[in-house]
């Protein structure tokens, strides 16, 4: 028997988007935030470099420039009305965070400090602009802490370490969610008028990733399994600078502060690929350039990595060559101490994990799976969309990485993920509460926990011929090799076949732990099931798209094809098969043109 709770709004996920949604929803409706981790453990906390907003603290900047940069960054797949909304809201939302207490770094005159980031430019000069508001290199940590603090202050109701496994939809509207309490293993049914998904991404699909172990796609798969489509799943971002072999993120802020990428010849190779933006071109462009350098034998010592160099003498050499200046016009020069003060965490990571001191030696880096551009399709208010006509599912909302508004299109700009979570977390929270106030509680179906019980029962009673850890590793390898930075028809077909094989083998998995209390073995097996579904949808959506756009780069179709592919994919998962539909991109001011950095 399940324990039943009732809240008008249930928020699933306690990271930045979920906490922002929780803060705003709880002002208008009885709200609960459910999270499989304690909220402060959420992946938002690992974001480093900054949050994008045209505050103009340090130099001239405008929301219109931010909007255009994001449209261009998205390779014209982002919906321009949504991007414009986000970039306009960015300014007041970042000030809102400051008022909540976020300890941003400061300029000399006490304003929020800002640093350059990839793809963010002064649209008149084409030069990098200081748009990323930051708190050292722990901006995500400070956002997560600040929002959690405000939730404590405002007495938001939390259910910590509750794993949501199903969303309840009855008679065409949402009526709740089903969760397992990890501490007891008990099933809990949350009867609700509105459910907001803010569960983050699924980087654990890939072998090398910057993402947390918990990033397993539970949210997007829970809705897929209830007939809600997933949008643009073929677009997954590989961040250029993960620590070699480990995937741990080294912020783009390193390059914002003047660091450069070099190959085995010591050459700053980005000058060849992006003559204007160079090391601050957008992430897809740089990751591809790195792959090409490595495949042409210019990886360091012939290996599959390159150098990210932020030694002060190197930073200063290239700053001089580029004619870079401080906002006051004086030549840009840095010391090791200044870099340490601005980037303490990544220096600590390098010292701890690879014994490299970035102020004295270059860092070994390779592209690392980082961010899902796709997800649950939503309006700019976080309302979930169920088809190509933008029909809304009453009571269902999504925000943050799990959602696809779409503001990132085919490639997200750095700093726009933290912006996304605060802007759309707030919108979805407000809208969910307003909706909840207009409607009565819908009736719960009989035996609402039945589906989850079946899933868990199957994992407890499998024949044990397969091990979850083995299947997970095989999935991660094939996704990394075949659905990674460069893709081909043959490779993706292999990936689709492999994931299908793994789906069959998954039926033989049995959780070894028969217990109830903190059965993380059972949970990990269930998460693997989610990842396999997400991998299947990702691989099939990628195989279908016969062009190259943003993070989806095909060797066999190397050009963008606006004639046939300027459209979003919507993938449905029906009885184990993927069905694809498409919907148009919203274009307001900017017709697609060639993308040059």
């Amino acid at each position, binding site marked *: 028997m399940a324990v039943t709770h009732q809240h008008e709004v249930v928020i699933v996920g306690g990271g930045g988007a979920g906490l922002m949604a929780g803060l705003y929803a709880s002002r208008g409706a009885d709200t609960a935030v459910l999270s499989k981790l304690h909220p402060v453990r959420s992946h938002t*906390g690992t974001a480093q470099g900054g949050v994008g907003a045209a505050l103009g603290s340090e130099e001239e900047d405008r929301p219109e420039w931010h909007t255009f940069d994001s449209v261009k960054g998205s390779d014209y797949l982002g919906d321009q009305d949504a991007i414009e909304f986000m970039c306009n809201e960015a300014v007041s939302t970042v*000030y809102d965070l*400051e008022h909540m*207490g976020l300890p941003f770094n400061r300029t000399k005159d006490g304003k929020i400090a800002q640093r350059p980031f990839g793809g963010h430019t002064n649209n008149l000069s084409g030069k990098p602009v200081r748009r990323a508001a930051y708190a050292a290199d722990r901006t995500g940590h400070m956002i997560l802490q600040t929002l959690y603090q405000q939730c404590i202050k405002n007495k938001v109701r939390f259910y910590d370490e509750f794993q949501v496994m199903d969303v309840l939809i009855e008679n065409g509207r949402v009526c709740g969610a089903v969760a397992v309490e990890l501490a007891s293993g008990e099933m809990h049914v949350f009867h609700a008028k509105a459910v907001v998904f803010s569960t983050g991404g699924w980087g654990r699909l890939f072998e090398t990733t910057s993402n947390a172990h918990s990033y397993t796609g539970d949210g997007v798969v829970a809705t897929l399994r209830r007939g809600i489509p997933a949008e643009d799943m073929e677009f997954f971002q590989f961040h250029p600078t993960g620590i070699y072999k480990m995937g741990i993120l080294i912020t783009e802020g390193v390059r914002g502060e003047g660091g450069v990428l070099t190959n085995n010849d010591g050459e700053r190779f980005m000058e060849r690929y992006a003559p204007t933006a160079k090391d601050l071109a957008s992430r897809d462009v740089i990751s591809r350039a790195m792959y090409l350098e490595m495949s042409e034998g210019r990886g360091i010592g012939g290996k599959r990595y390159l150098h990210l160099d932020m030694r002060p003498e190197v930073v200063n050499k290239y700053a001089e060559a580029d004619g870079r200046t401080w906002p006051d016009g004086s030549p840009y020069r840095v010391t090791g101490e200044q870099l340490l003060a601005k980037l303490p*965490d990544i220096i600590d*990571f390098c010292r701890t994990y690879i014994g490299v001191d970035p102020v004295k030696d270059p860092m070994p880096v390779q592209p690392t799976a980082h961010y899902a551009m796709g997800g649950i399709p939503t309006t700019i208010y976080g309302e979930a969309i169920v088809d190509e006509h933008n029909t809304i599912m009453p009571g269902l909302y999504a925000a943050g990485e799990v959602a696809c508004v779409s503001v990132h299109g085919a490639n997200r700009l750095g700093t726009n993920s933290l912006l996304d979570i605060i802007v759309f977390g707030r919108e979805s929270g407000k809208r969910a509460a307003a909706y909840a106030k207009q409607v009565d509680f819908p009736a719960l179906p009989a035996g609402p926990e039945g589906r989850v019980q079946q899933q868990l029962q199957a994992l407890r009673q499998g024949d044990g011929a397969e091990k979850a850890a083995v299947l997970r590793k095989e999935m991660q390898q094939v996704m990394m090799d075949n659905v990674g930075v460069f893709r081909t028809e043959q490779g993706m077909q292999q990936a689709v076949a492999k994931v299908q094989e793994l789906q069959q083998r998954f039926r033989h998995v049995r959780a070894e732990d028969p217990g109830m*209390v903190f059965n993380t073995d059972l949970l990990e097996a269930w998460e693997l099931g989610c990842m396999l579904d997400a991998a299947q949808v990702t691989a099939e959506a990628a195989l279908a798209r016969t062009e190259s756009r943003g993070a989806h780069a095909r060797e066999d179709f190397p050009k963008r094809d606006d004639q046939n592919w300027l459209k979003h994919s919507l993938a449905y998962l029906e009885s184990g098969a993927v069905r694809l539909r498409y919907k148009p991109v919203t274009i307001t001011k900017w017709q697609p043109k060639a993308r040059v950095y």
Partner: protein
Amino acid sequence: MQVTLRIRRFNPEVDQKPHLETYQLEAEPNDQVLDLLNQVKWFQDGTLAYRRSCAHGICGSDAMRINGANRLACKILVKEVGTTITVEPILGLQVIKDLIVDMEPFWEHYRSVMPFLVNDELAPEKERLQSPEQRARFDDTTKCILCAACTTACPSFWADGEYVGPAAIVQAHRFIFDSRDQAGEARLQVLGEQMGVWRCRTAFNCTLACPREIEITMAIGEVKNAIATGKRD
């Protein structure tokens, strides 16, 4: 290299009391202790329970006692701890299962110090101004990830779990010295009470345990000083 991993196990559904279990593993010197726990869980014994998430020292899930010292399992490497490694739950909080403890008393202490900015003045249209010097005043304590390594390394906390503990004081410090905050007096009052800062005997265990290298003992000293002198500078 061959590693012997000893883990203090406790399954509340089966065991009367905890016991040490030994596992033999093949490991690399650069492996994290968390990698070893994962190896055991994924390939030897799925029932092993521990918290983990980001796996690079930021989320704060995996504080545990490793060869007797509080560490994050993902931020300590095999080469730093040798080939015989003993892993136990952090002390002073009740063990629920294996390496998982009940964190609720820790969060209760956290909530008791008003860990949030209080400023009742109407917010300006833009940011509240703060000089780089004012910002630097509380920089160190903003790094805290609430992993509990400090509090559960503190002899005063072991002696009496009612003591608010170093992590909560760190959180209070972060606001007491923030020029934008107005509730410093109220926090100092809470921390001046019997179970506040004066329970600290400057053992320095907290500072040694902190995976973020926060100068915790110094922060506690600054709070003590503010209470004693009534001045915050």
